[in-house]
Structure formats: C-alpha cells, structure tokens
C-alpha cells in the first residue's frame, strides 16, 4: 500500500515481509531507525517466527549472522560507517563461505574526524569484500531492492549489501509503496539453503585451504559474481512483472540515447541530477545520466554500451580514494577501455555536504565547456584550505587541521543545510 512513511520504517516493514528468521544488529546512526522498528515488530509478534539478537558490536552482529545463515536461517542485519569497518573481517568470512546474508548499509562517512553524515566511504571500502552491492536511488527502490536482495542472495549463495544514503534516504518521509506480504511470499519462496550445517549430516565449512585450492576458491567467488550479472536483471524483470514498477537491475540510463555528455552516479543524488538534466535538456543541451545500481558485480558491458557514444563522461561520486581520486571513475575507465573521450571525476557530497542543483548546473556547464579539472572536489572551500595550508607552512605545530578549519569557519549554526 502506498503510504507517506520514513525510508527506514518502510525498509523495516519490507524486510519483515521477507520473513527473516534471525536479525542480529548493533545500533549506529543513521541505521538505527531500521533495526529499532524491526526489533519492535519482533517483540510484538508481528514478525514471527524470528529471533532478534542484541549483540555487543558489529563484529558480533556479522558473526551471529554467519552462524545463523550457516544453519539455514534467513538472516538480516544492518549497519553503517565505522560499524561496517568493525565487521570487516566477518564480512569476508560471510562471502567466502557463500552465506546469503542480506544487510542494509545506511551509507555514512568514515572518520577521523568523526562525521555521522552521508557519503559512500563506508560501503566503497568494502567493494572487494565479495558481497554484492546494490545502491538505491530513492526509498521506493531501497524497499524494492531488499525484496530482490534476498532472492539474489539465496539463489547465488552470496551475501548482498543494499546501500541507501544515510539520512538523505533513511530519514526522509515520502510516498512509498511498501510491498504487501502476499506478493512478497510469492516472489520470495522460503529459504532453501545450498549448504547447511546439520548435525545429522555433518560437514566442515571454512576450514583451512592451502595453495593447491585457494586460487580456485577465489576464481569461483568471482565466477559467482559474474553469474550475478545475469541474475540481477532477471530478478529485476521478474520483480517488475510481479509488482508493476521498475527497480534494481544493473544500470539505469536516463536520457542518454543522443547525449554528448553523460553523468555517472550512484544512489540518491541521481534524483537531483535528473532534475538538472531535464532543465538542461529543455535548454537544448544533450546531456543524460547513468545510474549504476549494481556496483558489485560491476557491469562493464552495460556501462560501456551506455557511455561509449558520448563525447564526455562525468563520474560524480560520494567517496574518495585518497592518493588517486575516484573509485567509481576507475571502474568506469575500465569499462571504457580503448574508447577515447573526455573523462572527469568529481568528488561530491562528502560527510553530508548537500549536492545542490545550483552547484550541479555550474559543474555541468564547466564539463560541457571542457574546462573541468580531471579531478574536481565539488564546492571545495579553497580559501579555507589555503588558510590551513598556510598555517602548515609557517608553523611547525599548527594544531589539528579539522579543528583549525572549524574555528576559521566560526559558528555554523547560522547556515542552512
């Protein structure tokens, strides 16, 4: 039923309708509302049978998830930021063991300095952890991706991360069609594990493997993600047929057909970019945007097909690989291997900085004029940076940069957004 509801609550209700049997989670902003609502649903018996395990850390959350999933329970958790980093070792175990856990990442920056706001630094740091990563454009898609994620995970025997922008989506209240239990049950049959720890048929999983097999194990992990490249569009098409709306898939091109300039992005910024694309199209500019829904596996062929004819590509990403620049951009470059076009990387929206239409208009105008630097930090306060650099040049011990710049900026409560 379509209702005006907070993204987090809609996700919680949707996850509940996917009938997880074990939920283990440790609260961290901005994921909290999701797991609070799920724990309420378990407590009231609205979600049953299901065990909600309060754990003492994210490391424990994923470890409990691994145990539960290995014994054949449909398993869900959610985290963000430092919480995701804290469970890193267990993340690799979950994927290495082929356990179909579904996890929401309410995307949030990683410290230091501590920052609770949105960017993709957390999930991007785990892009090579062996998990499938799907990025939601809006709350409707966040909801719909969770239903698809359980199907994908259990079919492939691989864990899936559904990444949704923290606060921007998790705390936004908007019209969302939360899937009803009946159609979800029809779409998502009870979990039939491909492997299970069963005392009646004892096996070992995760035991030591030497050099004679380890390469083959890793090869198969890669092969399974390549299989996901086929399955993700199939599941999305089936979802569309069952629920009457589009969600998921590998990539989502918007007004790209004859575009000279194509912007590439992931997540909730796509909505704002689409508005700007429409305004520029009305003014006669041939511009489009490609949303990448599946970042792992990365759909090289689909990205190449969507971008190959463009004159320039602007990759706008909410994360930074310090020491090189773009993360998504590096993957896009690989997709465009051998194709000559102007390529720009734009780092935007770090630590909750709003990505505004006004800034995007300026950015795209510079890109279209080919006056953009290869690596651009959107709305960087250059004066602020220069003052701090000057301090570093003139003083041996100028104090911590972050605190210095906060002091330079003065009271920030007067600003809007």
């Amino acid at each position: 039923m379509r209702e005006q509801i907070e993204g987090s609550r809609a996700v919680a209700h949707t996850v509940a309708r996917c009938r997880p049997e074990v939920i283990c989670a440790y609260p961290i902003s901005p994921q909290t509302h999701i797991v609070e609502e799920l724990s309420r649903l378990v407590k009231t018996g609205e979600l049953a049978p299901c065990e909600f395990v309060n754990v003492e850390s994210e490391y424990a959350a994923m470890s409990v998830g691994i145990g539960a999933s290995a014994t054949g329970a449909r398993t869900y958790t959610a985290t963000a930021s430092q919480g995701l980093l804290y469970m890193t070792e267990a993340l690799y175990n979950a994927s290495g063991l082929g356990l179909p856990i579904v996890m929401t990442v309410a995307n949030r920056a990683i410290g230091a300095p501590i920052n609770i706001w949105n960017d993709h630094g957390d999930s991007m740091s785990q892009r090579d952890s062996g998990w499938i990563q799907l990025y939601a454009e809006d709350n409707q898609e966040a909801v719909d991706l969770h239903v698809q994620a359980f199907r994908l995970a259990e079919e492939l025997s691989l864990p899936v991360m559904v990444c949704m922008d923290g606060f921007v989506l998790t705390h936004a209240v908007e019209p969302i069609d939360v899937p009803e239990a009946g159609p979800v049950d029809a779409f998502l049959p009870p979990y039939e594990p491909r492997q299970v720890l069963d005392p009646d048929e004892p096996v070992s999983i995760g035991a030591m493997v030497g050099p004679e097999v380890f390469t083959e194990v890793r090869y198969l992990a890669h092969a399974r993600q390549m299989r996901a490249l086929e399955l993700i569009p199939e599941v999305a098409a089936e979802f569309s047929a069952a629920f009457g709306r589009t969600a998921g898939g590998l990539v989502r091109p918007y007004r790209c057909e004859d575009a000279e300039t194509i912007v590439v992005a992931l997540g909730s910024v796509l909505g704002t970019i689409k508005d700007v694309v429409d305004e520029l199209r009305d003014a006669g500019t041939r511009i489009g945007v490609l949303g990448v829904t599946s970042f792992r596996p990365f759909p090289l062929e689909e990205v190449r097909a969507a971008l190959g004819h463009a004159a320039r590509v602007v990759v706008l990403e909410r994360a930074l690989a310090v020491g090189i620049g773009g993360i998504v951009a590096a993957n896009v470059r690989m997709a465009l291997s051998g194709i000559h076009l102007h390529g720009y990387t734009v780092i935007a929206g770090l630590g909750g900085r709003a990505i505004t239409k006004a800034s995007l208009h300026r950015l795209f105008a510079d890109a279209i004029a080919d006056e953009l630097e290869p690596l651009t930090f959107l709305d960087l306060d250059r004066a602020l940076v220069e003052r701090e650099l000057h301090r570093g040049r003139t003083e041996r011990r100028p104090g911590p940069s972050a605190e210095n710049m906060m002091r330079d900026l003065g009271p920030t409560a007067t600003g809007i957004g």
Partner: protein
Amino acid sequence: MYAVRIHGRGGQGVVTAAELLSVAAFGEGRHAQAFPTFGSERTGAPVAAFCRIGDRPIRAREPVTEPDAVLVQDATLLHQVAVFAGLREHGCVLINSTRDAGALGLAGLSARLVTVPATDLAQRHLGRPLPNAALLGGFCALSGQVAIASLCAAIRARFSGRVAEGNAAAATAAYEKVRDGLLEAADA
C-alpha cells in the same frame, strides 16, 4: 513546487512537524517530501526540517534554500539563525510568539509575516508546551497549501488518544486565530 522550512530547537518536534505536513499533503493526493537537517539532535540546539509539496513526484534531495514559507517554532532563534535566508519574494513567515511583528522588530520584513502564540495554545489544549502542531494549524490558514482537516487527520494518524485530540485542538485554535487575523487585516 511549494517549499517549507521549519526552524526550532531540538525537542520541540521540528522533524515531526515536517513529517505531519507531508502526511497531510499526501492525504490530499499530492506529492510530498519531508526531511530534517541531519544530526543536530541535541535538546535545545537549533534544528531545521524541510517539506516540499508538489503535484509531481519529487526527485531532488537538496535542502530547501529558497523557501516559500518559513515557520519559526522558537522566536529566540531570530537572533541566532538566519531563518529568513533565501525566503522567496512572495513568501510567508509564521512565528510562534505572543508578540506581533513590530514588537519582534520585524516590521520591515517584506514577506507576509504573522505570529501566533503556538506554545500557549499547546499548553492550553495539549497541556504541554509543544508548539509544532499549533504552528502547522496557523500555517494552513496562512498559506492555504493544506486544509486544516487534512492536518488534523495527519495528527490523528501519528498520535492517539488525548495527545492526538490535544494537538488537533491546538492546531485548529491556531488555524482559527490566524484566519481571523488575516480576515481582519483584509477588512482594515
């Protein structure tokens, strides 16, 4: 598209106000998006929340920097936060205060500005000094964007029992006060 920015302090129900407004608009078959400025969850700290209302799906996710309406739940913020920043030329302002615009030193503001004693009304009808629902009632009268009946329905969907009825009564009282004030001004 109509954009509202609500200013208040942590604990005054600023985020809830934006949500209620969006639910009221949704109840009228419109598209609405509500979201807070994120993170300032400390009690007493300045907080802002946004609500967009439109007739098409709302895709943009930037903060409201050019509001059509500004709602101020706590008049002490006038000295601390740039609450009128970016207010549209024909925009309107509703401030929770027992004093009028002149007494608040805001007579020179070009926007349509109205005050309503939302805290007093909440105290009277709800028994608690939570001004958000009352201020929204005043907004219904000032802007005509959302019907008071839709707001009361949203309040009753969000709360139950005495809290729902108290908030709905406070909202209706503020609605009538602002509406009557506007009618008087029009007659004058």
